[in-house]
């Protein structure tokens, strides 16, 4: 655990991850857990994860929700405003494939029908630990050492 931590801190000092968050017709459950990941109990900020106010400054796009028709255009626009290299993380069952809203007349079936997704984090909502695990996995390319609760799937 000691070497994991030093390795992680060394890595985190090398770069920080600026994330922009979009709620694409979500119930806010996932959004709260994303915010909770930034608060002291989970403290994703010590790993360099920071929420930015504009997609133009972001490395990673976090998307929650099913993307109802009104949000699809907005989601595409936000994605296009992100400079490369850019990554997209779909958080929560709705963003993965529509979740419990799958057959609702105004709910999409997940965001990968709108923009390309690099990482999927399942859960309804996923725990903050799972969200951090997922983002780290995305950025380092390999799963952080054991321990985290929850799992993330990389495409």
């Amino acid at each position: 655990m000691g070497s994991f931590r030093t390795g992680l801190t060394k890595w985190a000092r090398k770069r920080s991850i600026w994330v922009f968050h979009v709620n694409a017709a979500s119930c806010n459950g996932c959004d709260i857990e994303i915010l909770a990941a930034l608060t002291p109990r989970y403290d994703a900020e010590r790993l360099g994860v920071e929420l930015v106010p504009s997609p133009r400054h972001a490395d990673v796009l976090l998307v929650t929700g099913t993307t109802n028709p009104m949000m699809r255009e907005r989601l595409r626009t936000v994605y296009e405003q992100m400079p490369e290299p850019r990554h997209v993380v779909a958080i929560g069952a709705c963003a993965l494939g529509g979740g419990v809203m799958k057959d609702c007349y105004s709910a999409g079936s997940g965001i990968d029908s709108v923009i390309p997704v690099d990482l999927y984090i399942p859960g309804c909502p996923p725990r903050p630990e799972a969200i951090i695990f997922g983002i780290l996995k995305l950025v380092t390319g390999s799963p952080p050492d054991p321990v985290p609760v929850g799992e993330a799937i990389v495409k």
Partner: protein
Amino acid sequence: MSSDDLAALASDLGGTLAVGPKSTVLSVPPDKVTEACVGVSSLPGWNHLSTITGIDLGNEIGLLYHFWKGRRFIQVRTQVPKSAPRLKSISTALAAGTLYEAEIQDLLGVAFEGNPFLGKKLLLPDMYPPNAPPPLRKDSDPEKIRKMMDLE
């Protein structure tokens, strides 16, 4: 609630009263709805309009205006035929009803004349297929609507 006041209101408007376990239902014809709602909300303590419910009843669309006080509801109830789904809006007299009517306009296709959202959408997506029935109508098909809006 004074049942005499409500009974008097009912007879003034040519409506009927039915006392249920939770709601007292005042049924009136659609052209008397505004008067009924204003009458109920003027009863002492009854000013709170919880919401307006719309239901597809087959040949008609039912409209239920729920007022709350204490442990009971007073429900002003009416229906409009599907062949002519319109009635006067209560929003000029009772502003609280504005968004509830707008929701029914979107989801059931009833027109509330005088409502500021008439002709505009509050909830439904802009790209909702214009030739599809409003989503809460019995003949609407969510799968078809999804296809028409390009949702897989």
